[in-house]
């Protein structure tokens, strides 16, 4: 199922509460990102792309599923842009649409192992599905 709803930069501002136009592209967020290698769009580019209104590209990125929500980017941002909130807002605009859950409950049993804490499942389902 494809994405049906158009999403604008204004939607991202409303959901995230973050004004991406404050970003001055210093790159501290990407320097701090512990999962930088896995982010097809690193945090500083993510922020500028929100500012440019390139939301569809962001919605189709892997970055929205690879962010660890560790808040290193938000902590180190000198302008309070909080890239983690922008990434979460874009992910929400995807998974809130019909048929767009990134992780489905059916896929969980095969991922289980004896030690896996419930917290992992709850957290992943909260992040990846609605």
């Amino acid at each position: 199922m494809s994405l049906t709803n158009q999403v604008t930069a204004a939607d991202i501002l409303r959901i995230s509460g973050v004004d991406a136009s404050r970003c001055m592209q210093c790159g501290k967020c990407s320097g701090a990102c512990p999962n930088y290698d896995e982010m097809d769009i690193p945090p500083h580019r993510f922020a500028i792309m929100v500012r440019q209104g390139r939301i569809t590209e962001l919605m189709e990125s892997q970055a929205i599923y690879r962010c660890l929500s560790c808040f290193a980017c938000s902590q180190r941002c000198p302008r309070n842009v909080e890239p983690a909130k922008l990434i979460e807002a874009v992910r929400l605009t995807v998974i809130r649409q019909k048929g767009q859950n990134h992780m489905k409950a059916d896929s969980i049993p095969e991922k289980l192992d004896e030690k896996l804490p419930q917290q992992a499942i709850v957290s992943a389902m909260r992040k990846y599905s609605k």
Partner: protein
Amino acid sequence: MKYSYYPGCTLKTKAKDLDRYGRLCAEKLGIILEEPDNWQCCGGVYPQGEDEIATKLSSVRALADAKEKGQDLVTLCSACHHVLKRVNHDMKQNETIRLRANNYLKLDSPYQGETNVIHYLEMLRDKVGFDNLKKAVVNPQTDRKIAPYYGCLLLRPGKVMAFDDPEDPRIMEDFIRAIGATPVKYSQRNECCGGYLTLENKKAAQKRAGAVVDSAEQAGADLMITACPLCLYNLDANVPEGSVPVQYFTEILAEALGVKEEV
């Protein structure tokens, strides 16, 4: 000293050690932890969306319950602590979230962020005091070189969590000294363990956990300690076999206070 105590789901299942050692140690230190009757899962992750209300309500219920009892709310799991603390901050600072959450809940009196949320480690530091903790230790862990693993959720965002210096924390090192052991400082102590990514991209999660454990080993640690069940999992199950072991901080505390054998 009497507190409301929010254990969270995982402490009832896979992380029973974190909970039962925590309770035993509190008892030994003369602290009463009262678990509310009807707490609900915090959701594991803080919902960052400003328009996410329903996903914040379970936290508000626990916070409002503690307010009614006139107690501070103590947490033990890093994730629960993070979620409760940030939702509490929203209820204090964000007028829209406060209004919408209260419209849902229809409590006798609106909840406005009155409850003080403290992590167990903060309770040890600020309420018990590390000097007093030191005096209560019967088995000082003198030969141990312990690497404290802070991870993300206790520290960041620093302005909201107000737990310690988010870039150069010392509370766990001070805790380790109080139980007679030597803290080991290493570069990855406040970098992410991989978190929930273990279910989405195992390889990337393993890389992250490996970097953390490797950093602790290089610094000469013989044990790592954490307050988070998911960190414990990643630092244990997602690293090569034979790596430095990881334990809940409450377990080593129970050992130091001489109550571990009671379990």
